[in-house]
């Protein structure tokens, strides 16, 4: 039995498919010249998922697409400069009132204005700082060293900020995250104006179009327009640059970089951005025994991990928790010593074997590989490791800072921040249960030391103690990898928050 109807349908269906394919053929894959003629436009595909994209610069800011936008729209008091020095932005000076280093005077440049024309005043700055403090639960208490209720406005462009204890690193603490919004802004369901080098003209969280703010006090950006798209998938970000749909792809994975390196794309390497240390809890067996921790540090084959996990885009670690920090001490590289590791385990009473569970997840590329490989390396020292891969959705609430042995993450933050978040006895996520009153006192003492050289030495000593006796196995750090079209110049290549500030990026002809 046949009818004629379907064959007619078939023809039209086939024609439609052909038309669609033809249409697409016209566009071509390398069609990247979308810019209006003559406009210096940078299209940035940044890490970000729509559900976490936010207009609020003072909370968690988990999306790089958001932090990039905030870095363009808002002024901050200071940014990270060369060699760990602080480079002032909205602040014209940050100086202690006296030798006690508790009260600090922050002077603002007088010529900063919000995009509605109103001047940026000390009151706006203090309001913003207090708002960041209010959201401590979401931003890891990043400004927890300050007591902003005791801080006050001195005059239109001057304020005093008060630290809870003597704190010599105040300029550094005020870097990057201190986005300034107009006083009284409390509704962030819609974007709030700023005084930065660019203004938001369209979109907002997830996808934003920004144009140069010609009233900005700073060096005029060469870029006239920046378009930021939040793209969750790292491969899709990289492919966007390769297909000409974006000029820069932020934080792409090493595998993609290895595939395309040597072609026409430039790879920006930001050193020491990714760290997956193995975390051991000092208050739990068997890691309460220092010999076991040392054995676990001696059993690791660092070169092999860096080569396998970061595909060589990284540096071997020396168990120092903040290797990119200027205060990180210079010490001899710890090498693999299986024999000594076995000896130590035997002395610790594990001569006939030791069984542990190592947790890991897939939140960041290579975390699971790192754990699997380390398990093999530990096996050579006589330790039986069961690797448990937990879902990324719950890892940071159920495993992180809870389990006794797991794969952690640090994103290249300074040592003082690591200490505040994870090392002081009362730190909110003291994941290694590192509780040493003398160490805490040493930290306070270092931060009460005005002389920078002496302070660096004291901080270095604390890090060395942690390296030898603490609960971290820092086997290496991975580079942050950005992929960019060949004509993009001046992309930030420093660690940590440096990558947020792209206002001085240029386009070569």
């Amino acid at each position, binding site marked *: 039995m046949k009818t004629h109807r379907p064959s007619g349908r078939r023809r039209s269906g086939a024609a439609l498919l052909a038309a669609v394919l033809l249409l697409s053929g016209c566009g071509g894959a390398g069609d990247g010249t979308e810019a209006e003629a003559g406009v210096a436009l940078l299209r940035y595909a940044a890490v970000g998922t729509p559900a976490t994209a936010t207009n609020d610069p003072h909370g968690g800011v988990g999306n790089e697409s958001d932090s990039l936008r905030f870095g363009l729209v808002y002024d901050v008091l200071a940014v990270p400069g060369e060699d760990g020095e602080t480079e002032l932005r909205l602040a014209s000076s940050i100086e202690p009132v006296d030798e006690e280093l508790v009260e600090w005077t922050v002077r603002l440049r007088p010529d900063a204005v919000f995009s509605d024309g109103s001047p940026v005043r000390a009151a706006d700055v203090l309001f913003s700082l207090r708002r960041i403090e209010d959201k401590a639960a979401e931003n890891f*208490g990043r400004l927890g060293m300050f007591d902003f209720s005791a801080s006050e406005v001195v005059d239109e462009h001057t304020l005093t900020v008060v630290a809870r204890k003597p704190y010599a690193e105040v300029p550094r603490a005020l870097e990057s995250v201190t986005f300034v919004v107009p006083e009284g802004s409390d509704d962030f369901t819609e974007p709030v104006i700023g005084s930065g080098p660019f203004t938001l003209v369209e979109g907002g969280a997830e996808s934003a179009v920004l144009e140069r703010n010609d009233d900005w006090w700073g060096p005029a950006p060469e870029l006239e327009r920046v378009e930021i798209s939040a793209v*969750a998938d790292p491969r899709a970000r990289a492919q966007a640059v390769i297909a000409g749909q974006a000029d820069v792809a932020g934080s792409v994975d090493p595998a993609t970089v290895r595939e395309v390196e040597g072609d026409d794309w430039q790879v920006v390497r930001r050193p020491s951005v990714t760290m997956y240390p193995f975390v051991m809890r000092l208050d739990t067996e068997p890691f309460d025994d220092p010999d076991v921790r040392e054995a676990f540090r001696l059993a690791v084959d660092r070169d092999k991990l860096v080569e396998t996990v970061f595909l060589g885009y990284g540096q071997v670690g020396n168990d120092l928790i903040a290797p990119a920090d200027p205060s990180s001490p210079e010490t001899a590289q710890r090498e693999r010593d299986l024999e000594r590791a076995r000896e130590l385990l035997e002395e610790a009473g594990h001569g006939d074997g030791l069984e542990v569970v190592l947790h890991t997840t897939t939140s960041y590329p290579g975390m699971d590989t790192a754990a699997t490989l380390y398990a093999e390396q530990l096996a050579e020292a006589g330790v039986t490791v069961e690797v448990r891969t937990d879902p990324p*959705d719950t890892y940071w*609430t159920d495993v992180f800072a809870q389990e006794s042995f797991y794969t952690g993450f640090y994103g290249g933050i300074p040592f003082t921040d690591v200490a505040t978040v994870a090392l002081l006895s009362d730190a909110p996520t003291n994941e290694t249960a590192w509780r040493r009153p003398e160490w805490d006192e040493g930290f306070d003492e270092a931060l009460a030391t005005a002389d920078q050289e002496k302070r660096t030495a004291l901080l270095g000593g604390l890090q060395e103690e942690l390296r030898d006796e603490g609960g971290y196995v820092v086997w290496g750090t991975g580079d942050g990898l950005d992929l960019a079209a060949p004509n993009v110049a001046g992309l930030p290549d420093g660690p940590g928050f440096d990558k947020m500030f792209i206002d001085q990026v240029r386009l070569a002809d």
Partner: protein
Amino acid sequence: MRVVAVAVRASVVLVAVSIMVFAATELLPSDAAAVRAGGGATPDELARMRSEAGLDDPAAQRYLRWLAAMATGDTGTSLVSGRPVAALVEARAGATLALAGAALAVAVPLTALMAWAAGAAPRRVRAGAAGAVAGLAAVPQAAFAAGLVAVFSAALGWLPPVSLVAAGGSPLDRPETLVLPALALAVPAAAYGAGLLGGAVADALAAPHVADAVLRGVPRRRVAARHVLPFLLAPAVRVLATVAGSLLVATAVVETVFGYAGLGELLVSAVATRDVPVVQAVAMLSATVVVGGLAAADAAAALTDPRSGVPA
């Protein structure tokens, strides 16, 4: 009366869906407050965040609060970013509409073609076609998308491997970026739809009055128009609604793979962050499309069923 009955039934189904989606997100471990804190908050701070977001109320109470707000058209605010849910959905609905529209434009004729091949083609073609349709329908969208990219992008270089929607632009600015995601959505969905429709085609053709008409010498075109197509309208609309639904569901995978800023990507990330109001809004939108389509199919069946006796 019939319209009212259909509407009531549709609403009941939608409420049932909303309860199921709510219960499913409820069963997932962790919640939005914990996600926001990212492990960096003390238990006290966490408790405060939960109570501010109303997350410490019993699940039933939270659901009813959501339902009551929904009834007044208030979709609420995201528990994670604090942005209004309506704005989140609105910002992406256009992109998904464009993609789903393109996918449907391919899927509808393709479903018809494949259903014919599987249900009405000559016997020797039919078995092979049915197998191919079932096989295609079984390919996961992600694998299918990867295959398309490998062939049309990597090997042939005809089409872009990603589909970024330019900031401040529309997906239609670069129609070529829609092709691969649309095909990745359309082909498996069409195969699924054809699997359902193929049987109906075969049944309609096998009906005694069709054979009778052919024997009476009625021209084939007329047999098709009078005696076959009307019987296929209701199942076709039903299948269309199902295909549209499975398309929308599949956007979750396909949009993420292609970096396409649509509702599917929003749903995936909202589930990951336990952002219940956002999950509910997107899920209800998809459910409404499917339930609305099925209701339309019921109406079409009532109007076209020659046996129902209900006047058109």
